[in-house]
């Protein structure tokens, strides 16, 4: 099928196109130079904003912890449900939507690629089950390595090549995409009674520090040439004063950087940019972090913006969820995944009148606004930890309009206003910067060369919003911006129309990306039998049952690793 999107205002940062009136031609799922206008279906998108399909690199959409969130929060769903209609299946929404609803709602926002950022390797079969069910969007999952016994033992023994071989084998076996590190060593240390693992404190029984884990994994990532840098959730998340840990983590790998390429992605930094010593002296240190990121090109971050309202926090950081549970005394689910990681789920309501929550809200926006280069700071809500992804348009409006921010600032506690810098920041995102932060840059950092842009040869993932970027002034008319971004006028995925005027009209199966990582064969030949032997000692499952065959994925899209970075 051929399409021609006519007369839209195209924003395509990769190709340096900023709100230019252009036609976009689509043929066989790809963007092409031109199509025969008589044969192609012409869609008039005059005076509308045309962007590449959104790419979200951190959103908990699938996996066992997400499912625990669904199961133990019936109250989250019952007011937000969708009835079967047309191509859509029924489902429930809100902070932990059901799989089908997740796909539809992302498509309605104009997002076409979403990555699940934390899956315990042992439970990845479940993650793939859910990813298979999520329609429309392309997706992938990042396996967790930060508390993996194999990894920690290899790093302790200085066997980085063997570690790389193990990770390559695991990445291939369970169809993972990137190395995710959550609270390196901290989840393991919790089993020995340490609730707050310091970055330079030894992990009991293993005798290494989180610093060594992060450094080791960054080296391994480079050896394997994985397309995405190491994705880190730092130690001491959520604890006042943790901005120092974040800076230490970023600085720990500075000497390993090569060129301008990012080697470390620090995720949901809003949760790790706190000052003070307790929740009374809680303050924002977003400026320090932004300062560091501005000066050092080897790190990228995403913000993890908080949205006021009810949501569910879920992370592989078990000790953090335990601390949160002790603060809130509500529901709490916890899991220990054998030798790999842990996880926890706790519901939370972010309240505008709560001083701590208000400061958290400010920090996320400060980070996005103080970091000058939009290619290195991405907009997320760490769905559903900061808020559901359906609230992205609200975040866009806050970033694009000082007026919108001030409207909220007026209503938060005075102390929160005074102790953060948000009130003094005048910067407002342009449509161009927004497109970078939500599409172009995220696709680039994920190593997806045919996503996040509208150049010839790219996947025809296109989002059209009913807003005229030449006429609408987002700074004043932030409500129009919010409305336009919450219902895409048209979402195209692989050259097929998915959403028309905010309604889902087709729900094809999306790809599941994974990296076909490889280590030198001689090393793998030694490592795999060794792993197999240890499997018998450590695991409750058989080595043979651990592997997930490619045929299990609904639409498998293997990616070859990049050239190793020396």
């Amino acid at each position, binding site marked *: 099928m051929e399409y021609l999107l006519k007369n839209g205002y195209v924003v395509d940062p990769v190709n340096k196109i900023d709100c230019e009136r252009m036609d976009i031609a689509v043929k066989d799922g790809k963007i092409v130079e031109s199509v025969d206008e008589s044969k192609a279906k012409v869609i008039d998108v005059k005076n509308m904003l045309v962007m590449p399909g959104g790419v979200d690199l951190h959103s908990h959409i699938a996996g066992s912890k997400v499912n625990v969130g669904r199961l*133990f*929060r*019936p*109250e*989250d769903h*019952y007011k937000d449900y969708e009835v*079967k209609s047309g191509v859509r299946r029924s489902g429930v929404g809100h902070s932990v939507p059901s799989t089908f609803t997740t796909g539809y709602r992302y498509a309605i926002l104009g997002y076409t690629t979403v990555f699940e950022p934390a899956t315990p390797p042992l439970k990845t079969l479940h993650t793939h089950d859910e990813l298979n069910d999520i329609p429309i969007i392309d997706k992938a999952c990042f396996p967790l390595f930060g508390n993996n016994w194999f990894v920690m033992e290899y790093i302790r023994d200085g066997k980085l090549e063997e570690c790389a071989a193990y990770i390559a084998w695991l990445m291939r076996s369970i169809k993972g995409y990137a190395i995710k590190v959550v609270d390196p060593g901290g989840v393991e240390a919790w089993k020995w009674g340490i609730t707050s693992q310091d970055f330079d404190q030894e992990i009991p029984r293993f005798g290494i520090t989180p610093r060594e884990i992060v450094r080791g994994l960054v080296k391994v990532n480079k050896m394997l040439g994985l397309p995405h840098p190491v994705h880190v959730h730092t130690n001491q998340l959520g604890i006042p004063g943790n901005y120092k840990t974040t800076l230490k983590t970023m600085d720990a790998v500075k000497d390993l950087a090569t060129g301008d390429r990012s080697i470390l992605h620090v995720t949901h930094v809003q949760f790790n940019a706190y000052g003070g010593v307790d929740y009374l002296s809680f303050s924002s240190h977003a400026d320090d972090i932004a300062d560091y990121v501005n000066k050092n090109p080897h790190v990228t971050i995403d913000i993890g913006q908080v949205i006021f309202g009810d949501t569910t926090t879920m992370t592989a950081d078990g000790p953090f969820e335990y601390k949160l549970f002790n603060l809130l005394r*509500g*529901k709490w689910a916890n899991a220990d995944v054998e030798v790999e990681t842990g996880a926890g789920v706790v519901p939370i309501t972010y309240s505008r009148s709560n001083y701590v929550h208000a400061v958290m809200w400010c920090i996320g926006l400060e980070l996005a606004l103080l970091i000058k280069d939009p290619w290195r700071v991405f907009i997320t809500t760490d769905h559903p930890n900061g808020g559901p992804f359906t609230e992205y348009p609200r975040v866009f409006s806050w970033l694009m309009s000082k007026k919108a921010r001030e409207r909220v600032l007026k209503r938060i506690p005075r102390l929160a206003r005074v102790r953060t810098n948000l009130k003094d920041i005048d910067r407002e995102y342009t449509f161009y910067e927004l497109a970078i932060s939500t599409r172009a840059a995220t696709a680039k950092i994920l190593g997806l060369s045919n996503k996040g842009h509208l150049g010839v040869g790219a996947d025809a993932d296109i989002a059209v919003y009913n807003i005229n970027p030449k006429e609408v002034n987002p700074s004043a008319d932030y409500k129009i911006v919010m409305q336009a971004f919450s219902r895409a006028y048209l979402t195209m995925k692989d050259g097929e129309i998915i959403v028309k005027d905010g309604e889902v009209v087709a729900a094809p199966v999306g790809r599941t990306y994974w990296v076909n990582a490889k280590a030198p064969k001689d090393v793998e030949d030694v490592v795999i039998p060794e792993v197999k032997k240890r499997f018998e000692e450590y695991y409750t499952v058989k080595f043979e049952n651990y592997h997930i065959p490619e045929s299990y994925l609904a639409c498998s899209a293997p990616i070859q690793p990049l050239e190793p970075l020396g």
Partner: protein
Amino acid sequence: MAELKLKLKAPPQTPVEGEVLTPDNLAGRSLNEILNLETWRGNRRVKLSELFTVEGESASKPSDLHIIIEGDLRKVRHLGARMSAGKITVNGSVGTFVGFEMTGGTIVVNGDADAFVGMGMSGGVIEVNGNAGDAVGSGYWGTRCGMKGGLILVKGNVGTALGCWMKGGTIRVGGNADVFTGVRMQGGTIFVAGNVGAKLGAAMVDGKIVVLGNVPNILPSFHIDEIRPNTKVDGDKIEGPFYVFHGDITEGGNGKLFISVEKNPHLKHREAYIF
């Protein structure tokens, strides 16, 4: 008050959603419009005309409308859900979720009601002249807040978890209640004229439970305070005497149990702990 009479043509085989049958929804509509309203039967949308015959007249304001429904409504759920005014009378038994999240008005059931009567309600009156099922006056699954206000009257017996997570309002039961009455209660008043099951007031933090009948035991996490000759429920004086317990101390709670002395001789040993 304008009366609108609905008669069920035949008892449905599959569950029917009754949310549409509230004065708020039907007021200001002609009979024809009412017959053309849609609701769910199983997974299909059906018109009310397929389920009911309608007589009488509608009122312009919900508060002036009295809906009378005849028939076996045991498969009809969410009857009177979220209603704010007016009156519904059911001559027959109804299904689950009667008066779900209602904020005002009156529902009278001249028959039995299934589980979750008045779930999450914050105002109004529900009168059940038969028995009621489990979790009367509770909250939706997973929420930490049950009934917040209003009054539920049940003539007969009720099932388990009466007033679970209840935060306000009053529940009066003429018959017996099953186990876990007032579990996790945070406020409001429960009055049971008959007997109750075990685990009375488990994990309650506030509120008041009055039991005139027999209680198999009192949880060890409740302290005995005193013996009182009488107590009050919504201003009505109830003659005792009553053992007064407070708890549940495992939750640091300050709930009160008023247990009839006369019907519970097995609690006499607790009197030794009154200081």
